[in-house]
């Protein structure tokens, strides 16, 4: 089913965040549901910020994605 537009915005923002700070590969994600790589990267981010590790884009995780922050990636593979 098509995602409601509000969800889609959050989704896109999360993709951009994970790509920038957690090395989510570009271009792999479908728009529907949570792909393996997407889930894995969300878990990495949740683990880093000591949030509940669910792999899901919950409110808490989104809240952290909106906080003002440094532009350097959090995870060591620094390209």
């Amino acid at each position, binding site marked *: 089913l098509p995602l409601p537009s509000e969800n889609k915005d959050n989704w896109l923002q999360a993709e951009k965040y994970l790509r920038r700070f957690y090395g989510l590969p570009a271009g792999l994600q479908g728009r529907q549901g949570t792909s393996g790589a997407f889930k894995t990267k969300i878990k990495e981010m949740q683990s880093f910020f*000591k*949030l*509940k590790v669910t792999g899901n884009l919950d409110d808490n995780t989104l809240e952290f994605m909106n906080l*003002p*922050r*440094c*532009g*350097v990636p959090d995870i060591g593979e*620094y390209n």
Partner: protein
Amino acid sequence: HFPRDLKWQNNNVTFRILNYTPDLTKSDVDRAIRTALNVWSDVTPLTFKKLQNGIADIMISFGSKEHGDYNPFDGPDGLLAHAYPPGQGIGGDTHFDEDEHWTKDSSAYNLFIVAAHELGHALGMSHSTDAGALMYPIYSYSTGFVLAEDDIEGIQALYGPNPDQKKVKPKPDAPDKCDPMLSFDATTELRGETIIFKDRFYWRLHPQMPEPEQTLIQFTWPSLPNKVDAAYENPEKDMVIIFSGIRMWALNGYNLVDGYPKYIHKLGLPKTVRKVDAAVHIKGTGKTLLFTDEEYWSYDEATGTMDSGYPRIIEDDFPGMDDEVDAALYQHGYLYFFHGHVQYEYSYTARKVIRIMWTNSILNC
């Protein structure tokens, strides 16, 4: 650290400020950058020499959106700055997002604090997972010494200590919720959640989120002190009262209630009481119990007065609780006393302590 522990091979590092933000005077920017560099040189053998022209190791500049390194900024908020690990060329370079408002206080993004963080990257530090560390990726304003033990440990692993290091007082690392010896400073309910204060941090327990979330007190309530002695919620007024020393604050959600802080003696405590150890509101009775050393008081919220006949000895009225109280909670008809790494569950119906647990079992440890 970054992969391969990238670092400067020479301890005498050069830097240059290529341009300036209009938000601050040139001398304010110079001072913020110099003070930020001193944060790291105070605890390492590193020295920083300022160049007025030419290529320095660390080239510092302000830019917005795409600013020349194909790593664009994003307008106000969001990304504030970034820096590159030690190395040739762009290595060490530090960029600030000019679309932010840069200040030298807490009214917007404090340039010194962001610069100290970014220059940590320029020296070889990557992000820390410790919410109280300078190298934690999310901005928060704080006063006092900016480095935490975690930061000092990291930078000295790369460069060693400063041979004539002044005595520094780093911020202690964030407490570990599953440390078996963990004790609490204070606990309270807050609109259905449970808040547990420890050092500069608090854990937030939500009934639907078994994983507690650790945050800096200052991040949520900037006007509160960094250390809380006691706290309780008055649900009728939707207010949380925070005690620290001889002062108390009233919070309505995120907001500080006007007229606070006040002295705790306004509650009717004698001047000899200099600290409240724990506080708990007993739902349905309108009474708030305040614990100081071996005694406790009963405050009537409706009349705003202390009940007569107090203080009383804690152990007399709560058999089984023969310790001082660090923190107290009232949940599901039971009163929980926390002292050190032990919590006591007191049953009003049985009129005694009926169970003893680890303090941090409330944190699922």
